[in-house]
């Protein structure tokens, strides 16, 4: 019982450190993680993010998103896309980094809110999307392996990335990006 009491006190103490607004915190966190990922993926330190006004086609697996053009002082080197996809009972945010030719350079789960299915945040698992980057479509179970116990979120992020890539290619063919 003492152990249980200790855990309760521990949880309350930890919660006292938490800032009031989680949403604001999450926004800042997403921006920080996005910048960090851009720096390490493209090996640059100075860049600007310019939000695109044009949007992708929303779908059941792409409920929200933002597109940013990554600009250096002289050049535009690619895109950062932050997208929202559904998990079993909630939603999660993930980041895609692409070069100017829309080749996928990085996939990262930024915020996963639910305990169930969080295995998709695994760096090793996400690296499959880069190894299969030349294919038109990612297929769950084929070029994207399953994760036991996380089927719903695995299917969701696979479908979501497919939706992003399809929509991006369409925009590119129309010279809109």
């Amino acid at each position: 019982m003492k152990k249980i009491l200790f855990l309760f006190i521990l949880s309350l103490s930890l919660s006292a450190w938490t800032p009031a607004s989680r949403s604001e915190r999450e926004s800042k966190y997403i921006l920080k993680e996005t910048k960090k990922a851009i720096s390490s993926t493209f090996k640059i330190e100075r860049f600007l993010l310019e939000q695109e006004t044009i949007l992708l086609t929303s779908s059941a697996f792409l409920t929200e998103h933002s597109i940013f053009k990554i600009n250096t002082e002289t050049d535009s080197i690619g895109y950062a896309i932050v997208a929202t996809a559904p998990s079993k009972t909630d939603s999660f945010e993930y980041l895609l980094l692409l070069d100017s030719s829309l080749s996928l350079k990085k996939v990262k789960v930024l915020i996963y809110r639910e305990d169930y299915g969080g295995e998709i945040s695994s760096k090793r698992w996400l690296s499959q999307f880069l190894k299969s980057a030349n294919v038109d479509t990612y297929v769950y179970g084929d070029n994207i392996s399953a994760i036991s116990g996380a089927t719903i979120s695995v299917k969701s992020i696979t479908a979501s990335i497919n939706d992003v890539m399809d929509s991006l290619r369409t925009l590119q063919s129309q010279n809109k990006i």
Partner: protein
Amino acid sequence: MLFIIILNSLFFKTRDSTFVQSLFRLNKNSKMRKTLTLVLIGLTLCTYGQNTSVQDTLQISSNQRILNNLAGIPQGITLGGYGEVLYNKPENLNAEIDIQRLVLLFGYKFDERVQFVTEIEFEHVKEVYVEQAFVNYSLTSGLNIRAGLMLVPMGIINEFHEPTIFNGVERPSLDKYIIPTTWREIGIGLSGRLNSISARYQAYLFNGFLSHNGESGLLKGSNGLRSGRQKGAESTMSNVNFAGKFDFYGIRGLRLGLSGYHGKTQAVDGQNEIPGSQVGLSMLGLDGRYTLKKFSARGQYAIASLSDTDLYNELTGRDLGSKLMGYYLEAAYNVLPFINKQRLVGFVRYENYNTHHAVGEFISKNEAFHRKEWTLGFSYHIAPGAVYKMDYQTKSTAIANTTKGQFNMGVGIWF
């Protein structure tokens, strides 16, 4: 009541574009939406904070900045469920047709950090249980505190038992006789993920099995610990038990689990001072699941070691074993192309488990408790979340000429 109906209408209207679509995936199904509105009328009675949640949602929406990307589900109710209707025909006996279980999931998200999850289970139509009821408090993305009625993390099926995610009409028998699925007790603990090493951890303090209710001993040789589950119902507690699990999924297609449980059973007041009323228990579980394209395989091993069983058996007249052991291996193959939404999975499973793997000095091993089963069949997933199943089982024991067959069919859903 009128107020509640108006409130729910408002709830749907204001959240239609993001919340309801992403939560219920029902943007094209107005009938279901009406049904859910009716359900929500009932649920609203116990969620008086609904009116504020609408305001909060709007407030959060207006606060969204920088990325305008966090719509998700700031707050709200989740509905879900799973169920299975089964037909079992043992050799030379009548068939049994049963709604084996129907489980309704309700979740409520108070804010982005605090979520309540409960599952109400109807077994055989008429028995009602609460299968889970806990509050999850997310401290960071990798650390949650959970408290309430929770599933004990042991093996695969006790945590992942929805009918669309395991093969076979019936759950593996190992997960009935050695690991007493659905094994749940009230407790508190930590869970989370370590993304850099592709791992998940869980560590809980739980209430344990009830071994003596003051009148008789509940644990016995035929089904081990199963009858001692307290399930959170006016449960008695004299000893804290520890349960933990570590899952590793860093090798593509493979998921490995290591589970541990250690503690002592409970006896009611006045009984727990009598020697033999309580037994010590340590359980170890190893499980693995592997998927490669259309092929999948899984296996599980569990061993439980019990102490003071001689004293317990002497006091109660029971025949509880001092070691319980079991394992199963299963291989499966989906014969349909990947591009199909449907899957037709053929499988074969072998199980070997023994609730008298070892016994104390004063009882002898009952060979009928050493059971072996073969199951051969298929799961036809007609949609993600809906499955038809059919299989044939042969069941035998360590006693010669005891093999019996059983034919099973079933339909299962999970949403």
